């Protein structure tokens, strides 16, 4: 239904070979502007590896990742971020030696600049830029509801809020595409509902979402499209309804894991 939308991210035959272990095997799928796409699959299916390949954290063995037609392979993570891709991590990687606000301020790094002399002597240019960084970071914190916690140490937050902080930090880099790696894991029911609302509101503000998630009901209710991986191989790509009815998916994945869970 979204086939006419602009192609934002396009993977073709993406492969990652960890010295003989095929973590991602020739995976191809597109992400179109304005979509919420979920990547699901049992543990070890290669979901996080795909995130690492897209964001330049790991080099791909072969294949290509194009963002707005531009090849991302060979670029370094900060260059990929500068193009408009931001991500969170499966096991939350905050800067523990900084406050909540400072964590988000780091996200403004590439979007602001002031000279060496201004930095050294805190000249007006530096003060002005710092004020803008601070204000923008506060706005991103407000977006995820963490504004009141701005001055706290980032690791003193409860786990659910740490996940939200990581999202705020990613948002501060002004992404067009946001990759959320298991943003819902470790959250309770109410927190998950809030997360779902947040993700929808982000999409509403023009950010495309690619999501790795374990919670199948959560994914099915939220996503426009679901991509299913098993052992590094793409086995299904379609709407939640299509995927749920796919016999391969049921056999390989839904049958054993979710059947037991739900």
């Amino acid at each position, binding site marked *: 239904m979204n086939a006419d939308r602009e192609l934002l991210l396009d993977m073709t035959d993406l492969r990652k070979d960890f010295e003989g272990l095929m973590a991602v095997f020739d995976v191809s799928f597109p992400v179109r502007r304005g979509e919420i796409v979920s990547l699901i699959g049992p543990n070890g299916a290669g979901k996080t590896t795909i995130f690492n390949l897209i*964001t*330049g*954290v790991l080099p791909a063995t072969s294949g290509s990742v194009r963002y707005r037609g531009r090849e991302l392979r060979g670029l*370094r*993570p*900060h260059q*990929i*971020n*500068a193009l408009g891709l*931001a*991500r969170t*991590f499966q096991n939350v*990687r*905050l*800067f*523990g*030696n*900084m406050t909540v606000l*400072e964590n988000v*301020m*780091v*996200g*403004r*790094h*590439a*979007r*602001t*600049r*002031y000279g060496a002399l201004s*930095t*050294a*002597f*805190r000249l007006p240019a*530096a003060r002005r*830029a*710092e004020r803008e*960084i601070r204000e923008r970071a506060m706005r991103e914190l407000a977006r995820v509801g963490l504004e009141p916690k701005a001055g706290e140490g980032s690791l003193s937050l409860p786990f659910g809020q740490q996940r939200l902080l990581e999202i705020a*930090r*990613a948002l*501060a*880099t002004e992404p067009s595409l946001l990759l959320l790696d298991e943003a819902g894991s470790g959250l309770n029911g109410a927190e998950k509902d809030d997360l779902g609302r947040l993700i929808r509101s982000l999409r509403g503000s023009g950010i495309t979402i690619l999501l790795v998630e374990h919670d199948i009901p959560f994914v099915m209710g939220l996503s426009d499209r679901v991509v299913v991986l098993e052992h590094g191989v793409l086995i299904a790509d379609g709407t939640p309804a299509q995927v749920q009815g796919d016999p391969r998916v049921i056999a390989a994945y839904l049958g054993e894991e979710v059947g037991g869970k739900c």
Partner: protein
Amino acid sequence: MQTRRIPANTVGLVVFALVVFALGAVDLVRPFGLRFSDLTGRVVTLDTMIRIGILTIVVVGLNLLMGYAGQISLGQAGFYALGAYASAILSTLAARHGILPGISDAWWWPWLAMLAGMGLTGLFAYLVGRPILRLKGNYLAMATLGLGFIINIFSAEFPSITGGNDGLTEIPRLRIGEFLLWPMQRYYFLVWGAAVLVILVALNIVNSRIGRALRAIHTGETAAATCGVDTERAKVQALVISAMMASLAGSLYAHFQSAVSPNPFGFTTSVELVTMAAVGGLSSVWGAPFGVATLYVIGDLIKSRMEKILPLQGGGYELILYGLLLVLIMIFLPSGVTAGGMDALRRLRRRRRPDAGEQTA
């Protein structure tokens, strides 16, 4: 809006500067005929205080590099040497060989040489930093160690320029117009003025965009990179800043000693600098002056008191005690004497006013 509060670091810096300048003023004013060294029972002299000031500048830079960016340098004495030699060479040879007559003997020439030294050392750090900072942990330590050795060895070569193993002498004292920054009582204010300025700059850097990037790299390089931080660039910037600070200190050293030679810039000095940074504490720029002072004071105390405690021949026992004290400091104050001292103060205050409790977070 909350009421505007003056940041703790600003208060700290003002108090610190006042105390340091007041100590220096003792020797200028000589109240009741007292000298600075009388205040310390002749353990710490003004000469020592100047040396502490000079090394504080180096260690502030090292603190940024190690404590904030998380990159070790075992070759910092090399950058220190580059500054010292830049000042020594430019302010003696040019005048001696009549290069640029009328300019190379002007009062501002050595100051220009100092700036040139900082520029050259910064450029050098930039060029070697790119390849070196790709290394991590032990490999980085080894590479910087090698770098320090190379600079040290080179400084003993080319005797016509560097003076070889004997080094260079008769480096002129610094002047501002006709005002000579000498004797020592005057030079003290230049050194500590520079040290206070360097601390100010370091504090500004820590609370800037680049400072946040460095702290981010320290805790999570991958996370920092995916947040848009060019991690290689930020690390090179930290190295360049620390190298320029070391170079400034080197220049101040050259004009203080009036002589330079390869000896004081060797591997031992690099290790001492790292020790000072660690003893002072790597979690704050404020670790630098107290780390340097602690090592100097312990060293001087042992030197002057040891014979009375243990009247044995040979200096070996001094080193043993010195080492033992360092080990004890690192065991009992692992975050350094500065943070350790602050914690102890806070605990003492809390004990006195038990109701004050945990309200200051």
